[in-house]
């Protein structure tokens, strides 16, 4: 069985959206779930969060940033191409509670996994405040989509090219200090951002949830590659997560484990460039 790419779009430089035909996965998908895909026989298995899904159309949407060989190869695919394997939905779905003000914080490509949750929380009757950010306006995507599913939306860019000039955390701080009665914070983005948000919300004692994007192989609890330390206990992001209590997560460990294959990733990326552009060596 193979999985057809139905739509492929560059949302921002190096950030791509991909609609995949996967009816059985779409049927079971919920906000917070992820998939694992493998492009072809020689490909690696990488996890990607489900950013959107349509049960009727049998489609799942993923959004990825080009960082290594696999995402480079993915970015080179187009509508009509096929992926050899798509496995999912994996992980635990987000717990959608009711009757609170929920603050969503999304950085960079983290807007993708935040979107379906924001929508689900809003549909469940919560008041949703969202803060999204990127390095600059060019890298920002789905602002309109996020506005539709949020009661209030704030934007920050590092260079001030759109919205607040600074980090998303500046806005989070303002909102929390403004006494807006936030009952829960969901933060998804680069680990540094998630760590900052966790640090920020801790003194306010606001329940804060992060979604961890550790390295995975099988995604079913079999290998333990994705282990993270939460409240001093080893957990598997794939079967115990991917969402965890931000105040208990050891982000330093997460970041160092994410860097485990940096040397190999560099080599693989070079190989990709050689294959595409001809090898200078």
């Amino acid at each position, binding site marked *: 069985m193979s999985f057809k790419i139905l739509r492929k779009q560059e949302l921002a430089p190096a950030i791509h959206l991909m609609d995949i035909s996967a009816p059985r996965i779409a049927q079971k998908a919920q906000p917070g779930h992820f998939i694992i895909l493998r492009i072809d026989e020689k490909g690696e298995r990488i996890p990607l969060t489900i950013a959107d899904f349509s049960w009727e159309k049998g489609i799942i949407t993923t959004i990825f940033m080009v960082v290594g060989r696999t995402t480079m190869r993915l970015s080179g695919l187009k509508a009509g191409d096929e992926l050899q394997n798509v496995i999912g*939905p994996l992980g635990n779905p987000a717990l959608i509670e009711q009757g609170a003000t929920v603050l969503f914080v999304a950085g960079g490509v983290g807007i993708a996994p935040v979107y379906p949750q924001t929508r689900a929380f809003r549909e469940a009757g919560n008041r949703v405040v969202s803060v999204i950010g990127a390095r600059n306006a060019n890298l920002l995507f789905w602002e309109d989509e996020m506005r539709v599913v949020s009661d209030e939306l704030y934007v920050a860019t590092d260079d001030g090219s759109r919205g607040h000039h600074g980090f998303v955390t500046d806005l989070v701080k303002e909102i929390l200090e403004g006494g807006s009665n936030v009952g829960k914070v969901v933060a998804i983005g680069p680990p540094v951002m998630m760590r900052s948000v966790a640090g920020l919300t801790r003194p306010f004692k606001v329940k804060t949830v992060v979604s961890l994007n550790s390295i995975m*192989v099988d995604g*079913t*609890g*079999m290998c*333990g590659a994705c282990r993270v330390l939460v409240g001093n206990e080893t957990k598997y992001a794939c079967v115990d997560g991917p969402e965890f209590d931000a105040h208990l997560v050891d982000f330093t460990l997460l970041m160092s484990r994410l860097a485990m294959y940096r040397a190999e990733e560099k080599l693989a990326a070079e190989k990709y460039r050689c294959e595409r552009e001809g090898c200078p060596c």
Partner: protein
Amino acid sequence: MLERQKMPEQPPDARRFNFDEVALGYTDEQAIEEAKRCITCRKPSCIGGCPVEVRIPEFLGYVAQGDFDAAIREIKTDNALPAICGRVCPQETQCEQACILSKKGASIAVGRIERFLADYERRKGMEVPPLPDPTGWKVAVVGSGPAGLTAAADLARMGHAVTIYEALHETGGVLTYGIPEFRLPKEIVRAEVEYVTRLGVTIVLDAVVGKIVMVDELLAEFDAVFLGTGAGLPTFLNIDGENLNGVYSANEFLTRVNLMKSYKFPEYDTPIKKGKRVVVVGGGNVAMDSARCALRLGAEEVMIVYRRGEEEMPARAEEVEHAKEEGITFRLLTNPVRIIGDANNWVTHVEYVNMVLCEPDDSGRCRPQPLAGTEHTIEADVAVVAIGTSPNPLVPRTTAGLEITRHGMVVVKENGATMKKAVYAGGDVVTGTATVISAMAAGKKAARAIDGYLKGDLQQDVEAKKQLRQVSAQDGHAQ
């Protein structure tokens, strides 16, 4: 007469640099000579030593006459996966131990002959046995490892329609992700899986039961379900430093190497850390496999650290021997107490302590005790923890009505039936880490029980319902 035919092998100094199969297999002549050593006991004990009850003397008899086709047909009546079993079964504790000749010198090399026959047939083209008329019953099998494949093959040969659901992108379970190419070539696993599909079994890949489909949903579509989900949850030592970079569970290390072919990185995209000094913790076959993979990835030194002595090692003697020949060193009666890392969170050393064996307790096992004051450290840039696995929790967590032990194992009755109606289980998900052949035996037993259930209880149910409908229809008519 007393000497068994030697197995041709790749020499250690060549094979430690490649992933090709170590054992090369018997020639026709060797197989015949070896089979001729069978003294055809009137009451053969070897069959009782085989968990799947292969009629060993019969197939040996055919081989002795040079009739390889009849011999492999005989094996396949009881065992759908002979090329696999001939390679990875611990024959020395099963059929070969039961062989009367083992008491008089050397037993018949049953495993080697089995392997020879399976390879002979594969080269020639596999024969599919005649199948009975379809019974109309449908069975779902969860997992395509040794338990699932065996259950599926047997059920198919009983005339039932079988569909296997496999979570990974390849079939075979531990045969594919766990056991390395040099011990069990993946081409051989694929060929035996293909044989199972030629018996009429359908395989659905990339389907994680408990996520994309629940067991209760399977029960709506199928008449019975067999759970062969294996022991896919790694155990760690619970010591400091286990989450350092460079520390792997054996499952991850072997999955990267075998399933993802990271030994061919960067030709294949999945990376693996190739250590210079690798420490493997554990004394089972999985530890041997991990150590020998690490060596083939290019390590200068690979060391196995095991808390008991060589006698107590659960690994097959042959695997320990092969590992030693390849230059792997063993530190026995030692146990890691912590793993030490650098500022960047990379493993640099393993600290361990000497152990002493105490007297065996009532259970017959002795718990090794640490010897205070013997702590020392060894350098390592990769460490692999191979101390066992427990059952994967995805199916137990999402299936109401199963009984699960404290250790996560599915509870079954003698015949393989779980506490949930129409659901059977076998293999590592029931026993915890065990052997390929014991999982196959469990699959076989469950297949028999499922067949009995379908043709017995369920058939009666259906007929009773049919009668009830007829009776009520007549009643309705009378009014």
